[in-house]
């Protein structure tokens, strides 16, 4: 048996913000004439304690079962009033808010008559919509207290250790036969002068000692299903296949320096990359007395229009190391712009100049030419081409994404950008999160980073993941879509349209939406030709009612 609708409307003055333009008394009087409205109350400030307790009292006194507030924007204030409804004992989703401030009094100040008419219309539409509101419940799903970390470079290892330190189990996957990532082959880490190999060995030793971390090397991620708190990851490692249940996932797959095939006569012997130079420095096998480094090789060009951020620092660092070994060595760095951001890199840059490293700028239009034993460069100060002696040429190439980044992106259903670096949910608001709940990213997998940045991000990602893992269960508001299987005609429209690949066909051949995975966008709801998908949060009935109330 349907209970009788009893709607209360609360109209806010917001001081003079609304009342300075709109006639609140008239709006209240008008709202009182609308169907099912049993009480209308003006408030000076509805969001103040007097306002919210006014709502709670009115709910009890008038036995209200729907509440409409005409005030400011629901984007900031809806949670406050939903809470008042809940405290008053009615479902928080039996609440509708209409914006007569940002959308009316503030933007139509010079046409009060029209603004008044519009406010009446908006209130009428909100009341009409309120009649079709549905109660929405929260539900719970249990959390697996284990994390999956993909990639055991400095970022992945740091995340894994941080999570283990907080008491969570970790499954750590490494594609290669050994942990360590890029740092394994590098010389020293600027700006601290720590040996890169030592840093890696320290972390690897800590991981091996940490009973909570299970590391799988030569591993390939094969399949991931499930949702936040409850993922199931299948991977192979050294010929065996494993499936682990995990509550959260961290992507720390890093990247690799571009191999400059076909650029500047690269041959891996006389013309090498910075990584190859570091291998030489590490083993003490550098004997060249004239070295030319070329920056931005394959970077900041139309096909790869980004700055790799770290290669300037790396060139500066390595030129200093060369100068330390042989004070009289000639070192030239040919650059387009120097990216030596931050206090420490800037200091390193100055130090290199003081040590006699020569920095010469070149343009993309007149790049250096690598010849036999020298490099020709247009010298802007001299106004002509000059040959620089070069027993060794070192190319600074950018970090690029791994070839398998797209496969990881597909398996996890998280996006990559045009250069196949993983893309966070929001650059400023959630820099370490993916849009999919429970999956995080850090280090070079996101964008070229220094070791310090990679570690900070790794610790941040671990902390984001531990917010999920530390709960026994997660609560989720049921603002989600649900299939009425009796109506479903198995057309696959929802399966195809959902941006999160949530709907799937169950054994009976009918569509199913896992509420924990549904993001509540409603795209499938509008797409289903059978109108089989229910979406109580924003139902068709509500939208249609608002349309019907467009005109009085």
């Amino acid at each position, binding site marked *: 048996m349907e209970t009788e609708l009893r709607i209360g409307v609360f109209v806010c003055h917001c001081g003079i913000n609304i009342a300075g333009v709109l006639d609140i008394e008239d709006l209240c009087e008008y709202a009182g004439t609308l169907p099912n409205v049993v009480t209308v109350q003006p408030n000076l400030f509805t969001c103040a304690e007097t306002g919210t307790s006014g709502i709670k009292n009115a709910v009890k006194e008038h036995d209200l079962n729907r509440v409409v507030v005409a005030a400011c924007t629901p984007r900031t204030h809806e949670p406050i009033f939903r809470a008042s409804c809940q405290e008053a004992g009615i479902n928080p989703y039996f609440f509708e808010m209409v914006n007569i401030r940002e*959308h009316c009094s503030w933007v139509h100040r010079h046409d009060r008559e029209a603004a008044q008419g519009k406010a009446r219309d908006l209130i009428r539409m909100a009341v009409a919509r309120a009649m079709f509101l549905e109660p929405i419940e929260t539900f719970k799903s249990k959390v697996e207290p284990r994390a999956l970390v993909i990639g055991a470079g400095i970022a992945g290892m740091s995340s894994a250790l941080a999570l283990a330190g907080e008491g969570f189990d970790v499954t750590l996957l490494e594609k290669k036969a050994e942990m360590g990532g890029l740092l394994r082959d590098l010389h020293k880490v600027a700006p601290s002068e720590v040996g890169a190999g030592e840093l890696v060995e320290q972390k690897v030793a800590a991981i091996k000692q940490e009973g909570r971390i299970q590391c799988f090397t030569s591993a390939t991620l094969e399949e991931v299903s499930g949702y936040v708190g409850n993922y199931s990851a299948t991977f192979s490692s050294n010929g065996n296949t494993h499936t682990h249940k995990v509550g959260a996932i961290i992507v720390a797959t890093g990247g690799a320096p571009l191999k400059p095939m076909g650029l500047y006569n690269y041959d891996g012997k006389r013309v090498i990359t910075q990584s190859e130079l570091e291998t030489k420095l590490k083993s003490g096998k550098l004997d060249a007395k004239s070295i030319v480094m070329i920056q931005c090789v394959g970077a900041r060009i139309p096909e790869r229009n980004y700055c790799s951020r770290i290669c300037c620092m790396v060139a500066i660092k390595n030129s200093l190391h060369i100068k330390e070994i042989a004070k009289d060595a000639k070192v030239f760095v040919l650059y387009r712009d120097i990216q030596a951001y931050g206090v420490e890199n800037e200091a390193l840059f100055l130090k290199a100049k003081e040590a006699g490293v020569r920095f010469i700028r070149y343009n993309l239009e007149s790049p250096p030419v690598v010849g036999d034993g020298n490099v020709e460069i247009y010298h802007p100060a001299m106004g002509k081409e000059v040959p620089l002696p070069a027993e060794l040429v070192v190319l600074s190439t950018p970090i690029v994404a791994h070839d398998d980044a797209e496969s990881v992106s597909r398996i996890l259903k998280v996006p990559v950008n045009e250069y196949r670096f993983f893309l966070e949910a929001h650059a400023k608001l959630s820099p370490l999160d993916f849009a999919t709940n429970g999956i995080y990213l850090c280090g070079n997998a996101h964008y070229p980073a220094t070791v310090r940045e990679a570690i900070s991000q790794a610790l941040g990602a671990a902390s984001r993941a531990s917010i999920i893992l530390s709960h026994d269960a997660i609560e989720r508001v049921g603002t989600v879509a649900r299939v009425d299987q009796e109506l479903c005609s198995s057309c696959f429209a929802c399966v195809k349209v959902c941006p999160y690949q949530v709907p799937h066909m169950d054994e009976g051949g009918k569509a199913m939406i896992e509420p924990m995975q549904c993001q509540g966008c*409603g*795209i499938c709801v*509008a797409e289903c030709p059978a109108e089989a998908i229910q979406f109580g949060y924003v139902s068709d009935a509500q939208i249609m009612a608002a349309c019907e109330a*467009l*005109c009085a």
Partner: protein
Amino acid sequence: MNNFEPLIAVFSCHYCSYAAADLAGSSRIQYPPNIRVIKIPCTGRVSVNHILKALECGADGVYVAGCLEGTCHFISGNFKAKQRVQYAKNLLSEINMEPERVQMYFMSAAEGAKFANVAKEMTETIRELGPSPLGQNKSE
């Protein structure tokens, strides 16, 4: 006809265009009072039926305002909305109604001025087209 005031329904998504409308408000950017916003979580929630319903119920024009292309909070909702708006436009053409009465716009949450400009542009467009032939809007 001279004092025809168009009535325009706007389907506005929570994450971008509704936020842009809020920003237009807090920046006190003035625009014509002819639009009525219906808030939805994502423009992908809007079906062709909703657009037609608004026209049938008296709107002289309808537009769907979503996030900038490529930045939809729900990845592809605005892309879907664009297709559905195009579908609705084709339907209008078939029944000899001006397809310009239905539009799709894209804006970011930071584009309060754009929200106001779009409201103005659409109001002018519809003012020129005149009242909807479905004739529910009694404000003439």
